[in-house]
């Protein structure tokens, strides 16, 4: 059973479930393992209440997505994790959500600490920080516990360090505090609140998530989005990326005590966010996109107002960041901290900025292009060292690319006139599957929709890039000083709610 036997799908194009002939469990496993062996990435593995398993495999270099399906007779199957570490968190999720036991998994520890979705007698639930952790035993080994309430204004998570003096032997990250039930809320949908829930799945990545959600609806409804609306969506996504990259680079400067860039970027991030607000009224791009197109278009006058502000923000951002790259004391701190190897990155299925910082070429806009990126190619920005410096550098170069895209898109949009808002979408295709990927500022955002016989969501799966990448942070800390944790953490800047959903 090779990966060639799997069904090839296109980003955002639906496929009828009947075309996804269920494989036997053994073939399903073998196909996934072989595909990963050949260099594919396990982008998604999930189940539904009928004990169907679905896997999405991304061949990024070959620009292909493949989907596999199987039907379990009983809630157990031989785990993939022992041979395919990328699957470890997905399989823990299967066990927690549907009580499916991947046999041979090293530890089916809960991921989000909720009741099983299959119902049954509610067990007394443990809380994320209040349970067993991997422990290192020995003289002078000690444990440091941090969170869920942290010193900064950030979301809650629990970090458990096994240390020897300052050196971190092992870090285990326990999340789940932010679990609001996003995926289950979407089941039976689309509901009136579904769009808002997609926007707030990770509220600092609203555009990337809501775009993936809209593309699933549009794919399943067979609706073509206009070129102009796609261009406006690209504008929204790149503004989101630029604002967050500016904020992250400022925060990284702050974490090594280089205050000029930290201060300038803190304000400049707002200038980028305010560009989004000029179009849609919200700094975070809320209510901008809607299924079928966009809620807010830009007329010529607005484009004329935005262009000089974009150039001003970019000039001042360059000024602030060139200071950082010229500060040797900051650079040396960036270069020695938070190292990951390309081998580690591939093994755990890292995506987004941290993967590109390890030299792995992977960017949905390039590999599985969607919307405007089909015509306006994006070249993935790579770095080699896999450390904090590389992750900062990738952000900086991407910022420059985003600015280029934004200037071109605004100019284009100013030349043509606004379009009316799209009307409601027709019904969704029944018994179908649609997988939609976008490249958010953190990395690959994946939404997988499976419809029932009435064209409602039988299952809606969201994979935020943070779901893949939190484990990367844990690995990057091994052998580092615990005092460098804030810097390493910021260099990944992962989402808690995007993971917890």
């Amino acid at each position, binding site marked *: 059973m090779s990966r060639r036997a799997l069904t090839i799908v296109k980003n955002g194009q639906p496929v009828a479930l009947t075309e996804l002939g269920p494989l036997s469990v053994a073939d399903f496993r073998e196909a996934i393992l072989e595909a990963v062996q050949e260099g594919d990435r396990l982008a998604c593995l999930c189940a539904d209440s009928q004990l169907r398993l679905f896997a999405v495999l991304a061949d990024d270099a070959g620009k292909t997505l493949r989907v596999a399906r199987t039907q379990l007779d009983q809630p157990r199957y031989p785990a993939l994790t022992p041979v395919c570490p990328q699957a470890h968190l997905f399989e823990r999720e299967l066990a927690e959500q549907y009580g499916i036991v991947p046999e041979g998994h090293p530890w089916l520890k809960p991921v*989000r*600490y*909720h009741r099983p979705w299959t119902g049954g007698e509610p067990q007394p639930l443990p*809380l*994320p920080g209040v349970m067993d952790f991997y422990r290192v035993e020995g003289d002078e080994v000690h444990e440091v516990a941090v969170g*869920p*309430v942290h*010193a900064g*204004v*950030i*979301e*809650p998570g629990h970090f458990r360090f096994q240390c020897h003096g300052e050196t971190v032997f092992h870090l285990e990250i326990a999340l*789940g*505090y*932010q*679990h*609001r*039930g996003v995926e*289950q*809320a979407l089941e039976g949908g689309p*509901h*009136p*609140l579904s*769009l*808002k*829930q997609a*926007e*707030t*799945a*990770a*509220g*600092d990545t*609203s555009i990337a998530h809501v775009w993936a959600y809209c593309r699933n609806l549009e794919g399943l409804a067979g609706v073509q989005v206009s070129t102009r609306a796609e261009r406006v969506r690209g504008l929204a996504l790149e503004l989101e990326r630029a604002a967050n990259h500016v904020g992250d680079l400022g925060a990284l400067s702050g974490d090594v005590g280089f205050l*000029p860039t930290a*201060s*300038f970027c*803190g*304000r400049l*991030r*707002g200038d980028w966010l*305010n560009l989004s*607000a*000029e*179009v849609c*009224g*919200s*700094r*975070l791009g*809320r*209510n901008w996109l809607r299924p079928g197109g966009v*809620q*807010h278009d830009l007329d010529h006058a607005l484009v004329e107002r935005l262009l000089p502000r974009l150039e001003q923000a970019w000039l*001042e951002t360059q*000024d*602030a960041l*060139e*200071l950082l790259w010229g500060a040797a004391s900051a650079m040396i701190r960036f270069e020695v901290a938070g190292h990951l190897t390309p081998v580690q990155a591939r093994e755990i299925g890292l995506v987004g900025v941290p993967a590109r910082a390890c030299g792995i070429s992977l960017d949905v806009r390039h590999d599985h292009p969607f919307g405007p990126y089909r015509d306006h190619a994006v070249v993935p920005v790579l770095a080699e060292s896999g450390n904090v410096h590389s992750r900062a550098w990738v952000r900086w170069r991407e910022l420059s690319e985003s600015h280029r895209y934004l200037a071109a898109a605004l100019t284009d949009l100013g030349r043509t006139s606004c379009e009316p808002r799209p009307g409601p979408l027709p019904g969704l295709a029944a018994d179908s599957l649609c997988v939609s990927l976008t490249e958010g500022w953190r990395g690959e955002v994946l939404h997988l929709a499976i419809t029932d016989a009435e064209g409602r969501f039988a299952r809606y799966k969201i994979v935020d890039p943070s779901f893949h990448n939190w484990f990367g942070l844990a690995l990057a800390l091994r052998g580092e000083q615990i005092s460098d944790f804030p810097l390493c953490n910021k260099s990944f800047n992962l*989402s*808690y*709610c995007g993971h917890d959903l």
Partner: protein
Amino acid sequence: MMHILLSRWRQGHRTLPYPKELPALPARFQGLPRIVAAKCPEACRLCAEACPVEAIGFGASGPSLDLGRCVFCPACVEACPEGAIAFTGDHRLATSSREALVTTGTESYARAEVLGAELKRVLGRSLKLRVVSAGGCNGCEVDVNVLGTLAWDLGRFGIQYVASPRHADGLLVTGPVTRNMELALRKTYDAVPGPKIVIAVGACAIQGGPYCHREEQLGGVASVLPVDLYIPGCPPHPLTILDGLLRLLGKLKEPR
């Protein structure tokens, strides 16, 4: 060093002159809603039916909008055939009570009151807040955080976010309070020395926001702690948050 000084000169002094002058808000900003009940057709309930969070009710004086539930999606505005509901550019939304968030658009909106005399004496000149995200999507969190940047410079009003609840005078809470954060939130509150205040920021923290129907959350901060200030929005603009904080401390010199 010279480079830094030159940059400093180029970037200039960028702290907003607020509250002396109001910063420009975007034209499409959604602030306090205006409701003209006289425009409502007889027995029309289209806005209420369109609202995904049941924020719109109907009383003797016509429709009312509960800003504590509202997620500021424009469903009601779009549903209304008569243009009876519109969001204005008024950013001043914070209130002292949950009930005050329900607006009919016909009477004046009861904005937040100044703290009681004793609390104002203790906290009025220096307010240290511990921020707790209890299931927030990082939308409210980033716009709370932004007040600490040099553009807003929260410190000049004597307000500061602190690292430990032991150093705090109160909590600023975002998120609907997930079941998994309830214990941590209670413990953080208990660790704050009295007298203390609690501020709920955003639709989630007030009533659960887009997750108000989910059993994984408790429906807002008030289900767990006594709340002194409600700041609605999804997420609220930084100016709305700052306006609320300054009202609470009696630092806004304007007719109420």
